[in-house]
């Protein structure tokens, strides 16, 4: 009798339900649409793919599923190479962000109190200008008659202009520049919360500064480092704008290939299949991170 009197929807369920509803509507549902298009056939019409449901008569439903897109992606090495290309660019960019961003985050976290806010502002300030304009600015800096080459030639360091724009080097410069703040901010948040007395304790026990960093600071900052690295790695995997504007013909990435399939080929099904595969590839590092976090939490408790 008591059970029946319990309200069907509790406050707790409601609160948990809101983010689930949000995720379902804005993540799961669109993904299902993409998945649906990825198993259809392209045709010349509006919209440019066939409906899965072909016929419905006498209670008999005819559905046609086309797995050819996934088979083509597996067969044709072009797509696999593009995926490898994206992974390579994303991994190297993340590495550069770690090497450049860790000292930055560390320096800001250990700076005197009154300096921290201005330093953080310097990291955030570029966001006040549109991302596209900032990438365009790099064209002006890196091109043959650009600022960098003019400066280097004026200084007498080089005789003829360095060809940087439209090469992979320009892509890495653009990506590391654009994504560095996404790495620095979460890492800073972790480093600034660190209990510095732990370092004092280590020092008291005869630990040298370098060893203190390796044995104490680095392990404690790993969650921030991982979060920052994911914030760089995942969006760079699907990056399209920076390689398109700064890169040359040699840069083969999955984002550009998706653009080509969607716009040049009008092959929405294949573009959707590529998107679905990219998502699956991206979920893997995320699962690894979750696993790591859980282990960390267990170790803490």
């Amino acid at each position, binding site marked *: 009798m008591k059970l029946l009197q319990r309200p069907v929807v509790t406050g707790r369920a409601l609160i948990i339900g809101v983010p689930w509803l949000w995720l379902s509507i804005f993540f799961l549902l669109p993904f299902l649409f993409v998945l649906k298009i990825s198993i259809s056939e392209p*045709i010349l*019409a509006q919209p440019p793919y066939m409906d899965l449901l072909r016929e419905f008569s006498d209670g008999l439903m005819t559905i046609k599923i086309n797995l050819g897109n996934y088979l083509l992606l597996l067969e044709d090495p072009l797509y696999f190479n593009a995926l490898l290309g994206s992974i390579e660019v994303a991994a190297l960019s993340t590495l550069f962000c770690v090497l450049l961003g860790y000292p930055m985050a560390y320096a800001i976290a250990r700076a005197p109190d009154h300096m921290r806010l201005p330093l953080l502002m310097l990291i955030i300030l570029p966001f006040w200008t549109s991302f596209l304009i900032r990438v365009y600015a790099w064209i002006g800096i890196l091109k043959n008659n650009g600022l960098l080459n003019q400066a280097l030639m004026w200084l007498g360091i080089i005789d003829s202009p360095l060809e940087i724009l439209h090469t992979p080097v320009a892509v890495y410069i653009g990506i590391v520049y654009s994504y560095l703040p996404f790495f620095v901010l979460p890492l800073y948040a972790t480093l600034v919360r660190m209990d510095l007395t732990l370092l004092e304790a280590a020092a008291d026990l005869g630990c040298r500064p370098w060893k203190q960093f390796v044995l104490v600071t680095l392990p404690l900052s790993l969650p921030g480092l991982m979060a920052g690295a994911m914030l760089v790695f995942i969006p760079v995997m699907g990056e399209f704008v920076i390689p398109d504007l700064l890169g*040359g*013909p*040699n840069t*083969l990435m999955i984002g550009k290939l998706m653009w080509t399939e969607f716009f*040049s*080929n*009008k092959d929405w099904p294949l573009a959707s299949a590529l998107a679905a595969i990219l998502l699956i590839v991206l979920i893997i590092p995320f699962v690894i991170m979750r696993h790591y976090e859980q282990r960390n939490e267990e170790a803490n408790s």
Partner: protein
Amino acid sequence: MKNGKFALKTLTAALALTCSVSAIAEELHVYNWSDYIAEDTISRFQAQTGIKVTYDVYDSNEVLEAKLLAGRSGYDLVFPTALPFADRHIRANIYQPLDKSQLSNYDNIDKGLLNNLSAVDAGNQHVVPYMWGTTGIGINLKKVKEILGDDMPLDSWKLIFDPKIAAKLSSCGISLMDDPNEVFAAAHAYKGEDHTDFSKKSLDAAAKTVTATRTNIRYFHGSQYINDLANGDLCVAHGYSGDILQARARAEEANNGVEVAYLVPSEGAVVWTDVMAIPADAPNKDAAHKFINFLMQPDVIAPISNYVAYANANSAATELVDDAIKNDPGIYPPQQTRDKFITLKTATDKENRAMTRLWTRVKTGQ
């Protein structure tokens, strides 16, 4: 009670007024190429008709096509290139047949162009030609002559596709269009092959021609060369006639010592026509007809040609076009140049996909 009734009446009256006002303020949504209209065209149309124009721009046929294929783009008037784009769109039933009774200026349109277009649009039912031009080579005249010498004939695809000549120019910068239709047609023209053959053998031959010079190409892009040619950052660009002439004008304005020239290669160059069309799901088809009719007025289209450096499709307007534009062989070419023109053929979807994937391979050197 009385008061309440009065308030209700006022409210109804106010609502009715708002409705009628919004019915009067007619709206037209136009989607056109960037830099493809004169500065005062829209304001003149608005002053004449009272129709409010929302004018958006794109810089590639692909972007327009994706919007049209998705449907409900909200645009009343679009400007696709006839081949292969408008051709495909007509077959996909994307466009509304035109109501010629609303187009009183239709007779001004060049009969020859209409005749050519009837191959893709039977009876000229769906599209009206707007501007036309060619895809050729833009060069930095001084630098190219410095490298190749004065005797070398420059109106040739050799500048791009002959690996020995291209290698000499590569440090100075060569760009190709990021469009397999255009590049493969040019490669075929260079070799004297049939560019309308989309068989694997024919496409592979074109791919081979491009691959042989690929390391000499700095980038593949459809509009970036305008700035780079004008600034002297590029020596040879494969591009649209009007775009290269705009680069020439920008270099003249900047007075930076760069002299840009547009050349129609003697082996053959692609000639193309951009057309006006009304999407079948356009919200305001009447206003779209009015705008098409307005653009067919000679005193409207001639200033556009003067401004954008493209030849218009209006035979009645030619006498109103500036002499500098009319007599520019890059814009209104003489007959012997016209004889070298080639027109693209629309590939089937399957051929097109094979071609695009081959193109990605060629570009990236896979």
